């Protein structure tokens, strides 16, 4: 679902859809120009979005903004990739799906080739390079638990390297915390 469709209609129902910022460049871009209103908006939107008939209006009022101003800013934050997405956060296991953190030890000389091969799998949701002997860390997301094993086997076959799967045994989950607050 495209962001533009979501955001061009003010006062739309809360549950109608979600937005995804386009692109997933390898950059560690930073330093987006954010004013004080942007910062308050980002902080407010990390809490629970209200499930009411006109959620954007409610959020705008809480921030002392005009609804159209809020939508314009939200669109801009997504466009600039300050927000990577806006919408529902799924607990994929509750929907029957599976989520697994995995890692590989990739020889430096082969890193680009392997990154391209791994990223080509639609089951790979995130992939980070990290400083460690295990230097590639990615998250697999599949519709079924069996899909994880299949994806791992396929990645091992394509890359010729073993994949270490780190299944979640327990989550020490805490509700929204002040860490989400962006820098003042």
């Amino acid at each position, binding site marked *: 679902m495209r962001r533009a469709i979501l955001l061009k209609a003010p006062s739309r129902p809360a549950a109608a859809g979600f937005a995804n910022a386009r692109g997933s460049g390898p950059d560690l871009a930073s330093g987006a120009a954010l004013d004080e209103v942007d910062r308050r908006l980002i902080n407010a*939107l990390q809490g*629970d979005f209200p499930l009411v008939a006109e959620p954007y209006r409610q959020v705008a009022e809480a921030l002392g903004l005009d609804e159209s101003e809020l939508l314009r800013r939200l669109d801009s934050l997504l466009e600039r990739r300050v927000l990577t997405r806006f919408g*529902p956060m799924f607990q994929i296991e*509750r929907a029957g799906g599976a989520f697994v953190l995995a890692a590989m030890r990739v020889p430096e000389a082969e890193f680009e080739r392997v990154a391209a091969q791994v990223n080509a799998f639609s089951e790979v949701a995130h992939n980070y390079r990290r400083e460690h002997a295990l230097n590639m860390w990615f998250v697999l*997301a599949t519709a079924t638990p069996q899909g994880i094993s299949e994806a791992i086997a396929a990645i091992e076959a394509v890359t010729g390297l073993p994949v270490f799967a780190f299944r979640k045994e327990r989550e020490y989950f*805490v509700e929204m915390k002040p860490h989400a607050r*962006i820098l003042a």
Partner: protein
Amino acid sequence: MLDSGVIRRIGAVPNHYAIGYTANGMSVWDVDDSRIDEMGKQVGALEFVTHCYRRPRRLPDWPYNLFAMVHSQNRREVAARVAEIATLLGDACRAHEILYSTAILKKSGLRIAA
């Protein structure tokens, strides 16, 4: 779906880099099995820990069973926060490491078959 927990929440996902949290350290810990749940809850409750999970060790390569993600403005701050975790864990922890990220290779939303 919110009531059933399929949707955890509705909201925004910030790009940590764009909002100034340019250092991302995955801290990993080898914690005594008999104390990990008690300690994991305390680590997960720290305000600067964004994700905290218990995961299986992969011996002999990987002795760590607790993962705690720490985001901050720079590595020095990440290291200071990881030191706080080390203090909290005390003798329940045998070893730890920080794996800093140096590039986002891919970041997309979930794709599940319709």
